[in-house]
């Protein structure tokens, strides 16, 4: 499978995401923000970083980039899209996912090894996990507080669109401890923690993040 990793101006974790795709056994394909071209990939990762410096509002400028036109169209047709951190913010700004991400409630950037519970193992990106499974991923964000209005939050809970939830402590003030959500169809997932940093024992917080990069194959053969 070919998984595209988009580089926006200011993307930082694109190299990490590409490495994680490779460690997950797939081929990573570099996609450029300025091209109307998905290069025939089967899925797309929008990596973390500070695209366009997070100026104006996180993700607000990136959503208008040429490549996003293609990503939005493909996602609507069912292509799996994973947005990590800044990628999650871009997906919310693109209205592929409900809600928004705001400044952490304690107003500081936070980087820590964060425990999570996978709530939904039926999305394109989480099928390698089992619902209820507790994992530890690297978390790092300044604007990671997930917000949505109450009816939306109720709907997300009711439809199983809450993909992962923070355990032990809520690191950024997210509503209902939400760490990640999906669209109704389950092909688009946004996640504030960084599974791409948790794919090697040597360098991250363990290997609990690898499942996000092996799930596509499992779901393809399911």
């Amino acid at each position, binding site marked *: 499978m070919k998984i595209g990793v988009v580089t926006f101006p200011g993307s930082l974790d694109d190299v*990490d995401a590409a490495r994680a795709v490779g460690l997950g056994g797939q081929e990573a394909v570099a996609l450029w923000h300025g091209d109307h071209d998905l290069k025939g990939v089967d899925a797309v990762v929008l990596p973390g970083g*500070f695209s366009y410096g997070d100026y104006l509002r996180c993700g607000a400028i990136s959503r208008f980039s040429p490549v996003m036109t293609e990503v939005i169209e493909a996602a609507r047709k069912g292509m799996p899209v994973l947005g990590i951190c800044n990628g999650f913010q871009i997906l919310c700004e693109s209205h592929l996912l409900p809600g928004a991400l705001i400044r952490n409630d304690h107003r*500081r*950037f936070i980087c820590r090894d964060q425990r999570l519970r996978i709530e939904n193992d039926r999305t394109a990106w989480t099928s390698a996990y089992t619902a209820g499974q507790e994992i530890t991923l690297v978390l790092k964000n300044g604007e990671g507080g997930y917000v949505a209005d109450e009816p939306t939050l109720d709907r997300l809970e009711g439809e199983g669109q809450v993909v992962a939830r923070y355990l032990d402590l809520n690191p950024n003030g997210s509503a209902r401890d939400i760490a990640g959500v999906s669209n109704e169809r389950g092909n688009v997932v946004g996640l504030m923690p960084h599974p791409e940093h948790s794919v090697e024992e040597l*360098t991250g917080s363990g290997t609990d993040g690898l499942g996000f990069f092996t799930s596509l194959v499992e779901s393809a053969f399911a």
Partner: protein
Amino acid sequence: MLDTVAVAAEDPSREQPWADLGLKADEYARIREILGRRPTSSELAMYSVMWSEHCSYKSSKVHLKQFGELPQETPVGKMLAGIGENAGVIDVGQGYAVTFKVESHNHPSYVEPYQGAATGIGGIVRDILAMGARPVAVMDPLRFGPLDAPDTHRVLPGIVAGVGGYGNCLGLPNIGGEAVFDETYLGNPLVNALCVGVLKHEDLHLAKASGVGNQVILYGARTGGDGIGGVSVLASETFDADGPAKRPSVQVGDPFMEKLLIECTLEIFAAGLVAGIQDLGGAGLSCATSELASAGDGGMHVELDRVPLRDSTLAPEEILMSESQERMMAVVEPDDVAAFMAICAKWDVEAVVVGEVTDTGRLEIDWHGERVVDVPPRSVAHDGPTYQRPFARPDWQDALQADAAESLPRPADASELRETVLRLVASPNLCDKSWITDQYDRYVRGNTVLSQPADSGMIRIDEDTNLGVSVSTDCNGRYAKLDPYAGAQLALAESYRNVATGGATPLAVSDCLNFGSPEDPSVMWQFAEACRGLKDACLELGVPVTGGNVSLYNQTGETAILPTPVVAVLGVIEDVTRRTPSSWSAAGETVVLLGETREELSGSEWAHVVHGHLGGRPPALSLEGEKALAALLHEAVGLISSAHDLSDGGLAQALIEASLPSMTGASVSLAGVHEDPFVALFSESTGRVLVTVPESEVGRLTDLAARHGVPAAQLGTTGGDSVDLQGLFDLPLLEVRSTWMATLPAALG
């Protein structure tokens, strides 16, 4: 009216504001002598910033010279670039080279903590980039006033947010550093920033403008009015309570632009489009043009009105002095200019040809067709004044050294001893620093093998071979106050040891020498002694000084900071998967203390915290012993399962730091350490490392230690949920952890 070269010749006696620009009368006279006329206002601006203390090292260079006398090679190979370049470059094998440097941004960070610290990171990263390297990690040694002082609450959160805000946005992992609190840093916080970069040997680039007709391109951010005179005004003057507001002199950073600049520059390097390159930092265009031209083989002609401006009202003098961030200057062959511009356009980086290399031997700068600068470039960049500042051992030094901490009252019994351990664990210098380090991304790029709270930071540089580098920065300013010669050596020894504990081989040094006013002979003596000590120790350890930075005038009124020669050591490790962790992870392993514990409490954290005392002599140092210990640790890779350096807080602190990360306790006896348990716990004797080893391998370790002549004492066994000091007291890890972690959040929110 524009002050051109022609006007200067016609109107030789015009009054000029040289004194306001920080020049002394004899310096101004020398400029007139060099030029054979008065300088134009643009020339005056250039000379004043380039001859400032910060840029010219005029007070320090007579002492720094000796670092250049050290053998220009590391234990594994030659230095590829040394002192005088933007940063030193060393060979680390497999065709790779590493460049690293530590710099100060102290004064700006006091005036405007967030931007001061942020642009400190930005500046050092561009230095590394300019060598042709991809920046791969940063570290930040920080010093603050007392944790409970109101001004610390003003500067600390801003500085930490600035280091994080800029570094995180650049995508560089922050892999370590220091946070030290002492009264003398109140009003003089130290913000030092280190960056490590990696390159292949053939990618090395140097700052020079050669080849007549080559084009000079300025690219990156536009030039604005920020930071005008930052280095000459801020970093070369003592703060004065009645002084004018200096806020406008601090630069403002845009890390997003810097990230684009990094990727754009690396792509330009990869395409082979650069003949010479220089970053714009302190002294801005004055520095870049004069340094590039004087390192080249001809001259340079610049049309200053082509410089893209953020503020169209800026005068040529201001453009020359501006320290606007995120700018680089490249020298490019005419045929490569189009390709260069195309890469800049791809990254949305503005680039303009502002001049060309000439054969005149002069640096000539025009403003709308009129010549405003015509100088010999070396006279600006390198022939600045050199001061033989008077220095003298202060008359209080003997009394200070006589006032030893060994005679201070000590804990009377085991229960007081226990209380003392907990008090020290909670003290600002020894407590958990995650309030700070959690604001830094330590994971980005996916190659961080060790980071805070490990003794050193370690980065993988090749994913296939697992080649890596390790860096540590250290300095105990109290030791340096007691004896600056020994203090600088102790800083080097600790850094060297920290690199060795992780399993790496120490190779090279970069230093950031933070001191008070050079106009005070006692401060100058501290500086001279520290330089001499560092050089002697480098010679003995066989590690060269590859570059560094001096920050003087760190004082408010009469009070100078503790002399703070921060020493960074970089090491190489062939296989990062074999690194030695700095904490315990398994129960049932034998805890061994390597090195000798003597009764050495002067300058210690114990004396500082419990008695507010500073006096006596710092711990004795054996460089021979440090070398043996490092060799032993290198040979013990794979045999030992952890290694933790003993430094501030002594064995007590090391036991706690080794146990907390995985909450693995130990039961230990202090009998083999020292007859007095208090000395065993709190002495800060150097050359010591706490290691653990599987029980079955104890014999091999003790044999190895004996072979290297390093004393080894078995203390006990890991396991359990407390640090049990047999026969004395027990420290449940949950209690220790909550004590250790509470301090910074309680003070800073």
